[in-house]
């Protein structure tokens, strides 16, 4: 889109049809300029329309857009559902050379009133570009209506997304499955979820839920309980596993690591028909979902069933097998995916840290030991160092073991904690203490037993690279905390020794790969925490899926950019906004799934959170505004 002829994007009309302001336009308008290698000739979506090529017929563009939007209107209210159908009908007859006198005014009247009177946001947003077109290109519509000429259809690329869906790394159709949950059609909801999510029970319990952070409801009252709602159909699927189609290919792919990235990649590759084998050094699959997420958040049988569902696609598992040299795999496999995660603790910098003590442990090792069923005797005073989800998991696990006094020591403050807010609150409820703005510097021990840790107080200085204020030690502020166990959860780094230098590493030992998992070695791909450093389950799943696509492209020798990836570029330019132009809505209350009371939860490792029942889930899902955005892109010649 070299220059913009007309734009009504975000309600800002830029009319350059006379050609006088040729230089100004494009840079000011936040719209996609490129689709893959092509220029964009026209673009129409929820926030207006943009034309770069005068030859594109606005009438045909709007007709195509309304017809596509009408296919997505849900039917919850007849105003929107029938309204868009009527608009599509009228536009269709105009383009068919059968327009009737008064059609333009009828369109405008209907568009204005449909926008004001629909139940939710989708149809209200859908008519915005139609209104913009009718107001600014009225003469084109009048001409089309009065003439008997047929206006030819235009070719376009369609994309449907939503703020929640865009925020989700695996781009699940969130409004879609919420709508099915609302209408108590959970079997179909699960089918829809499984299209993009191979671990619905895991994510339904533990997902960090980027979707909820980008939920438009959040600006009105509170975001929907999307994560907990997903669990409703997901848990029904445990009882009734659904088979899915499988193709057949000869090519073999090896995946090193049976965590969420590896499993997700395996799922897609197996469904494409590849012969997939997964190697993992641990006896139990799941990676961090097994070792790092305690069973009170994710029961082991649920995880096992979910993994079984994936491996039932004829995936060959090699548990308890550590790959020593990645090159060994090259001979037997067409492609190898490195998805080994980040399991090694960083150097904690604490003096007198004696790794031989079983009371001085890395948090991840502690969690893994518990997950593997190792007995750890309860302690009196446990210090957990760190402020992320692992620290919270360690503290809550220690509490469940029967440790009396558990304190999280974090160098920043409550607001800077990277842990999920609901996890922090749950920890507080369970009586876990917090020592903010402090960091242990030295372990005190007597007679080979840990008795305490010397700490230093911190204050927050200037923001660092992450945007959070950097903690700085305060002079002469040392103090001692008594403790008989200290766990560190200060972040993990990947163990990349088996690569034998085959791949370049970053300064913090992670594998260098692009976001599609492609490395400098053609047959070697990498995805998940071993590339990104410690991140979430859902991000690992997304990386695994993208790597699977890259592997498929590599093996099938298909260099073409998938339309999905080209659209990713478009959406990146667009920064999908949460801005609402829909009807005013009353405030509603977010429903939460029930939890065991804190004093009961800490008695053992039973799952703390219950699943919504179908009726309550339907009510909560009914709060969804269905913020689908339909966008059409018309490619230019270039």
């Amino acid at each position, binding site marked *: 889109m070299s220059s913009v002829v007309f734009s009504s994007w975000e309600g800002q009309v830029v009319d350059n049809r006379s050609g006088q302001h040729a230089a100004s336009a494009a840079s000011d308008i936040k719209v996609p300029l490129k689709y893959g290698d092509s220029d964009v000739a026209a673009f129409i979506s929820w926030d207006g329309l943009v034309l770069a090529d005068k030859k594109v017929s606005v009438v045909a563009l709007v007709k195509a857009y309304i017809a596509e939007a009408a296919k997505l209107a849900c039917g919850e*209210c007849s105003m929107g559902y*029938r309204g868009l159908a009527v608009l599509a009908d009228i536009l269709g007859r105009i383009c068919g050379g059968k327009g009737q006198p008064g059609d333009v005014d009828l369109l405008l009247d209907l568009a204005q009133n449909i926008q*004001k*009177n629909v*139940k939710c946001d989708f149809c209200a947003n859908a008519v915005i570009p139609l209104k913009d077109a009718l107001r600014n290109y009225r003469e084109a519509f009048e001409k089309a209506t009065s003439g008997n000429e047929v206006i030819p259809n235009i070719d376009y690329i369609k994309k449907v997304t939503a703020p929640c869906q865009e925020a989700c790394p695996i781009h699940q159709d969130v409004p879609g499955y919420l*709508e099915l949950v609302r209408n108590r059609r959970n079997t179909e909801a699960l089918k829809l979820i499984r299209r993009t999510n191979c671990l619905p029970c895991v994510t339904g319990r533990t997902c960090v839920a980027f979707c909820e952070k980008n939920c438009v409801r959040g600006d009105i009252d509170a975001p929907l309980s999307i994560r907990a709602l997903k669990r409703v159909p997901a848990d029904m699927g445990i009882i009734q596993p659904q088979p899915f189609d499988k193709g057949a290919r000869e090519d073999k792919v090896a995946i090193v690591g049976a965590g969420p990235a590896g499993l997700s990649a395996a799922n897609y590759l197996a469904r494409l028909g590849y012969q997939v084998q997964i190697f993992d050094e641990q006896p139990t699959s799941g990676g961090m979902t097994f070792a790092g997420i305690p069973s009170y958040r994710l029961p082991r049988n649920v995880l096992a069933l979910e993994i079984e569902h994936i491996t039932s696609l004829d995936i060959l598992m090699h548990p308890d097998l550590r790959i020593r040299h990645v090159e060994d795999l090259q001979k037997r496999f067409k492609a190898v995916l490195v998805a080994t995660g980040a399991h090694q603790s960083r150097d904690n910098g604490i003096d007198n840290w004696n790794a031989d003590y079983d009371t001085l442990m890395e948090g991840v090792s502690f969690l893994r030991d518990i997950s593997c069923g190792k007995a750890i005797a309860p302690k009196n005073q446990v210090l957990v160092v760190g402020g992320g989800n692992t620290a919270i998991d360690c503290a809550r696990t220690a509490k469940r073991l029967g440790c009396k006094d558990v304190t999280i020591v974090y160098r920043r403050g409550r607001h800077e904690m990277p842990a999920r807010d609901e996890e922090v609150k749950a920890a507080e409820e369970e009586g876990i203490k917090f020592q903010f703005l402090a960091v242990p510097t030295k372990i005190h021990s007597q007679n080979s037993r840990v008795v305490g840790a010397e700490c230093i107080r911190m204050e927050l200085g200037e923001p660092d690279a992450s945007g959070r204020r950097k903690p700085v030690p305060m002079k002469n502020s040392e103090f001692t905390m008594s403790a008989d166990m200290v766990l560190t959860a200060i972040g993990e780094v990947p163990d990349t020794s088996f690569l034998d230098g085959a791949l370049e590493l970053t300064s913090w030992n992670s594998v260098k790969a692009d976001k599609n998992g492609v490395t400098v070695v053609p047959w070697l791909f990498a995805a998940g925490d071993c590339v990104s450093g410690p991140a979430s389950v859902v991000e690992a799943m997304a990386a695994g899926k993208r790597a699977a696509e890259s592997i498929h492209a590599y093996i099938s020798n298909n260099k073409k950019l998938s339309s999905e990836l080209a659209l990713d570029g478009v959406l990146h330019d667009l920064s999908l906004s949460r801005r609402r132009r829909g*009807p005013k809505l009353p405030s509603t209350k977010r429903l939460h799934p029930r939890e065991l009371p804190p004093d009961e939860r800490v008695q053992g490792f039973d799952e703390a959170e219950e699943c919504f029942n179908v009726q309550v889930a339907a009510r909560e899902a009914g709060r969804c505004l269905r913020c689908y955005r339909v966008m059409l892109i018309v490619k230019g010649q270039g």
Partner: protein
Amino acid sequence: MVKLTIDYKEIQVEDGATILDAAVKAGISIPTLCHNEELSPAGACRVCAVEVATDKGPITVASCNYPVADGMVVSTRSEMALKARKLALEMLLAQSPHSEKITKLALDAGLDAPRFSLKGDECVLCRLCVRTCQEVVGLNAITFIAQGLNRDNKEACVEWDADKCIACGSCAFICPTKAVTLCDNVDTRVIQTPNTKMEFKMKACTKCGAYYAPEKQLEYMAKTAKLPIEKFDLCMDCRD
């Protein structure tokens, strides 16, 4: 309690009430179609539109599911409210031109004929049947399928699950457009919906032989009442 004004009349209602609840309490009539006081509101038909003043100017809302707020100023007969109602009825009338109920509501709103026509059956997707089945009958035999991407269905519709249905006929009774009908042909009850025709066996009275109720409904009644099925062997006339 919440204080609000509807058509210049001051009203006090419980917190959490809808505008329609408040209007009914004050004796102000608002036309409705998909509303039924026994059922949760759906906000589907938009016939009950009213105007509400906001700091950004007046808006229209569906009074059946919009909660009252302190100091709210509502108008049920403003030009804006009437226009919204008329358009809502225009959509409904175009979909279901034979419905007496909709025709009457449209005439009351000053609408003779819609400016456009719509294809399809007479179902206006008000979901009275869905809600009655789920909330009154206590079954989930009727569900609404919204239109969307990657679905089995092409269009929004209401679907009956013949296995779950007990043939009670509540759906046909509540349907405002006769899109669902019920017909008893001696020993068979036929329920005709926009996309299915279902037949159910009727039970004959063990005393007089008259067919008096669907067998599945009697079984459901016996089960929910925890009574032996024999208790339902007689028709109403033959019972003591």
